[in-house]
């Protein structure tokens, strides 16, 4: 394809918190400087910066890319900022990837940040803007409505039970107990999930990830730099992204086609023909418990409607045949919108290098995948990493 090889050579992140003292800029700097320190690089080594962060309404700050830029190491450097909802966390490393793969830049810093705690009375109020301004907002919807409608359609299409779906919350919140940055890690049972407050049936409180402040950063480098900087570069071997329409009520939400299209694009590039066999560890996007399952199916890692059984059988535990969300995911670590997906890419980076500490999956995984989702049930973003 004429593109250069690109590797992730360093990563860093802040704690994910309900409310941080730090401003968004300070959170960005904390994550970005940690990423640089982790591979002993300085700002002088960085050729360009990619910033992933949600628009004004969450942090309440206009022109957020410009506002955050100094904390993202972008002083007097070329900067690009993108936003595709929650898909941003995996989309920004893709943007970073094509900066380097194109040959235009050798080293790029990718930073994802969100500070949702500033939004009152509740960030839900900012999420309202996702609904159609002419035909839907008048119904006074809550963001959770869309997820509940999708979850119910998914359950009905495949005859799934809330019990099986609740296992995802149990697994991820327990995995997160081993993540030093986790906001909502805890040891719970399926009954705890089913008995938690009903928000919008069939969604209960413990089926949902929290609102968070946090930042994540990583350093991407061209091959000749990567090999000089580390003896464990993690190669970005496949990228994919896809956007469906905003007409979500005209689509069948029981299956995320846009995730499949993004996955196929990444698999083709990475030479993956049998994803279930060739991928060793996966971080699909899990803002809600059922989403992990929905996305595993969209990623073609199992058949439609089959993901709950994988969870029941223990296949997706850290010591299972296909570990899923060993980090603890959004359900356990937290959900600062544009940073959450980047946390997953960082997790795959650490897992492949054997640096995930207590979260390390056994068996020396070689190929990992991170996926994010966003907007009105629309966006699929995928990266395939290999060591």
């Amino acid at each position, binding site marked *: 394809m004429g593109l250069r090889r690109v590797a992730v050579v360093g990563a860093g992140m802040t704690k994910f918190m309900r409310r941080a*003292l730090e*401003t968004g800029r*300070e959170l960005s700097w904390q994550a970005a*400087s940690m990423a640089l320190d982790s591979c002993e690089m300085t700002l002088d080594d960085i050729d360009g910066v990619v910033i992933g962060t949600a628009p004004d309404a969450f942090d309440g700050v206009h022109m957020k890319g410009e506002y955050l830029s*100094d904390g993202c190491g972008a002083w007097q450097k070329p900067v690009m900022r993108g936003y595709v909802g929650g898909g941003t966390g995996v989309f920004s490393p893709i943007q970073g990837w094509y900066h380097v793969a194109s040959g235009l830049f050798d080293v790029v810093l990718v930073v994802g940040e969100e500070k949702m705690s*500033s*939004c009152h009375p509740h960030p839900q*109020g900012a999420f309202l*803007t996702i609904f159609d301004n002419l035909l839907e907002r008048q119904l006074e919807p809550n963001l959770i409505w869309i997820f509940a409608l999708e979850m119910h359609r998914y359950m009905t299409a495949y005859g799934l039970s809330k019990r099986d779906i609740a296992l995802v919350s149990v697994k991820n919140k327990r995995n997160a107990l081993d993540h030093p940055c986790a906001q909502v890690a805890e040891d719970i049972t399926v009954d705890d999930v089913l008995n938690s407050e009903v928000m919008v049936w069939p969604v209960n409180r413990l089926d949902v990830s929290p609102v968070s402040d946090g930042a994540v950063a990583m350093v991407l480098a061209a091959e000749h730099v990567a090999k000089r900087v580390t003896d464990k570069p993690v190669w970005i071997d496949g990228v994919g992204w896809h956007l469906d329409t905003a007409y979500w009520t005209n689509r069948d939400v029981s299956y995320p086609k846009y995730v499949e299209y993004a996955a196929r694009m990444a698999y083709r590039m990475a030479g993956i023909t049998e994803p279930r066999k060739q991928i060793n560890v996966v971080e699909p996007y899990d803002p809600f418990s059922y989403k992990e399952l929905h996305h595993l199916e969209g990623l073609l890692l199992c058949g439609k409607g089959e993901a709950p059984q994988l969870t029941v059988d223990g296949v997706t535990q850290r010591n299972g045949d296909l570990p899923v969300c060993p980090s603890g995911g959004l359900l356990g670590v937290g959900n600062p919108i544009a940073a959450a997906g980047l946390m997953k890419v960082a997790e795959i980076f650490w897992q492949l290098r054997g640096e995930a500490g207590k979260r390390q999956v056994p068996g020396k995984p070689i190929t990992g995948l991170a996926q994010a989702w966003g907007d009105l049930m629309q966006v699929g973003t995928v990266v395939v990493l290999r060591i």
Partner: protein
Amino acid sequence: MGSPEQISQVEDIRYVYGEIPVNYAYTLGVAGERFFREIMEKGRFMGTRCPQCEYTYLPPRLYCERCFAGLDDQWVEVGSRGTVEAFTVAHLDLDGQPLAEPQLLALVRLEGADGLLVHRLGQIEAEDVDIGLLVRAVFRPRRQRKGSILDIRYFRPVAS
């Protein structure tokens, strides 16, 4: 090819009214928390200085944007006096309505700082302001201060 439809009935043109019903409560950050507490409790300005880049940030920052060094142990006091680097007179408010009284605004470089502060000028007429004017901060009384930029009422000229 153009649009196939023309609006022929005026009553078919519609607006839909709505709002984004959120407001904000911002933390000031690690650096901002210290900056405003010093103003509130001690009536003084603190900046952070990067020794490597020889740059004093005011308002202070937790990190140097130039070299990315952490500056949380590099606090320095800067003077309450400074010079006017630029000024303007505002006649309209945020909604474009005329202000009851025009506002005199300035960019002030405080003694010892490299960064500039935006604030109001007081006790002076617009036609008497010049670039380079020496000014001093006028703080509100201690009990009226809340840890806000408005704890400074304005900057007034210093007799040279």
